[in-house]
């Protein structure tokens, strides 16, 4: 039984090592996703605010045209045409007009959200599930290593049983079997649940 417990212990230790390796892999994948997410957030913010900068200039010319349109002076007619022309040019070349709201404002949040969704289709941007998986794998490692203690206690009982020549050895054997089964139950439960 000592040999059997040793072999079972080695098997559990092997599963614990695999769980530990899985935890490291999940952490790595999570960090890759975190890098992707931050890269996407930075690129999206920079691009969106470049567009918003162009929109700001557009707005100035557009509003200047609107104000000029309210005036009756002849030079204002020319100013109006020039200002609106510039606004139109900026709108077509320097920012995507589809983020212009009907009231003339620019929806930066929509642009940021759409860009994020676009990136999300191409890359993994969610580190959380990976980190949760890593934590779970670590818990599994910990519990399996805990099961090894139970097998070690069983080993101790079996060794004691071998060393004793009176009837107490049967108690030790029973203890050894008891702890072996507890260890196996723990192992099975951990494997089944995690």
């Amino acid at each position: 039984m000592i040999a059997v417990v040793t072999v079972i212990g080695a098997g559990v230790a092997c599963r614990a090592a695999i769980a530990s390796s899985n935890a490291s892999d999940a952490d790595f994948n999570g960090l890759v996703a975190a890098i992707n997410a931050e890269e996407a957030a930075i690129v999206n913010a920079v691009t969106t605010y470049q567009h918003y900068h162009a929109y700001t200039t557009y707005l100035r010319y557009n509003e200047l045209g609107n104000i000029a349109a309210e005036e009756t002076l002849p030079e204002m007619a020319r100013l109006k045409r020039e200002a609106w022309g510039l606004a139109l040019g900026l709108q077509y070349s320097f920012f995507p007009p589809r983020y212009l709201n009907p009231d003339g404002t620019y929806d930066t949040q929509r642009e940021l959200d759409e860009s994020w969704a676009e990136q999300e289709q191409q890359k993994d941007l969610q580190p959380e599930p990976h980190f949760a998986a890593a934590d779970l794998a670590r818990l599994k490692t910990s519990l399996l290593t805990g099961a090894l203690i139970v097998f070690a206690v069983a080993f101790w009982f079996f060794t004691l049983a071998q060393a004793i020549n009176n009837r107490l050895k049967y108690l030790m054997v029973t203890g050894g079997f008891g702890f072996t089964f507890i260890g196996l139950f723990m192992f099975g439960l951990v494997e089944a649940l995690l």
Partner: protein
Amino acid sequence: MESTTANPPEDRFKNLVAVLLAIVTVLIAIVTYLQSDAGSRDDAANRDTKRYTLEAFGKQVSGDSRVNFDYNSAYQAYYELDLLAEAARNVGDEAAAQRYTALRDNMTELSPMLKPPYFDPATDQLNVAKYEADTYLVEITALRERFVAAQGVKDAWDSKANTYIVHLTLLAVSLFLYGLAVTISGRTTRWIFSGVGTVVAVVATGWAAAVFLQPVEDLRACQTTDGIAAIDAYAQGVGLAYQNELEQGIASFDKALACEPNYVNALVERGNANMARGNYEAAIADFEKARAAGNNNASVAGDLAWAYYLLGRFDQATNMNRQALQSDPNELWIQYDLGLSLLAAGKTDEAKTEYQAGMDLAAKQVAAAKAAGQETSSGLWWGLEDAANGLDDLLTVIETGEGQPARDKLSNPEAMSAAATELSTRLKSLAVALEYTGQPPAGTLTATIGPFTFAQTVLNDNGEVVDYAPADSFPYGTDEVAVLFDYEGMQDGQEVLFKVYVDGEEDPSWRVAEPWSLGASGAAEKLISFAYSNTQVLRPGVYTVELYVNSHFAQSGNFVVEGVE
């Protein structure tokens, strides 16, 4: 009943060793569990450090990008249109002014920064610091603190995990000794082996228990009485101090420190806030606690030394500056502060030696940068300017009794005054020479520049200057001040530099460097003027004008532009 004593001694010994082997196996299993657990926590904390760094970096760049747009696009558009409206109003074009004003007001929709609580359109007061703090500064400060805390946790669990490996090794040695004991036939020798094995196992077990009982403190878990994390309270404090809301900032730091009294960064930041409030005793207490809690940063030691200096505790300032320089000998500002504290203590010769060491170091750093084809750190120029300012402030204390340290704390102010003037002049000349030539100033000043007279220009109907109205103080709205001076011994082609400081800080937009072309002697005029614009006036403050000839400090003078009544 059978008895174990019926067995021969050989068997009894082997049985005993077998039981001991089994016990050590159980211990190995337990320590393996502890090692595995510590390793897992180490890995988790390590992962957190990387994650916090990434997030802080990303939010910093995104936040900067956002604030850059808000300030440099949205607010700039508002500001430009506001100036255009004012310019139109100044020339009597009310219709244009109204158009620009309407256009300007439309710009406020572009950014939350142009709305309350960040912007007050009635006064045109913009609180960029509050906007930055709310947008990203507090958040990234908290992330950085979590990074530091996670790093500490990682190190602690890493150390535990590594120590458990030592315990496992010792237990393996114990197993080895037991194994040897059962193979050896000599009675005494096998008892020695098994005895040593037992001692090793007991030591390893006791040591492992001690390591297990050692707590790992995680600042991230520390909660204030308000239920917020100490780190978040600290980050809020940093945000408030950044907005110059020092009292509220200190209250936030207090909350963080109530949770963790040895929170080093909170102690340092509270010390900085207390310094900014002029509460030097409290600042000293904070900096000293920070150092006692393990902060060996040269900058904190330098700040502590500065607080000692301001309170007239010159010997402590000197010692602390020396300690700071041991941590980082290249910190120029600390080197100059060391000279200043010695000077204030009346140790003029020692002070001059330390200032000279600082000037040599500055020249060496500039030469090294030039040789490597690189630019010098901006901190070097700041350090030189700060050193000269420190001496000028000391001179003000000696002359007027106003400022810190208190005049009655100074030893032999007369001798000190002469040395401070000489050192300030040398530092200023060195800064200019290093910046423009990369070398310390060569030769000596041969020209004589008379004292500056400041005056408002008096114009005739054609806008020509017909006279000057000298004054030391000018009302708000002044858009031009003439600097008048006599000179002798000048040579055409000499490099002349004018620098203008407002409230002790140079305004580089006024800096003029040009070759001299007005002959050997005579009277000269230099205009500080916004008269070409119909919107700008000189902002209120104390203006200091300095003149350098071939990098040698030649003359300086002050005037005041008064504030709005």
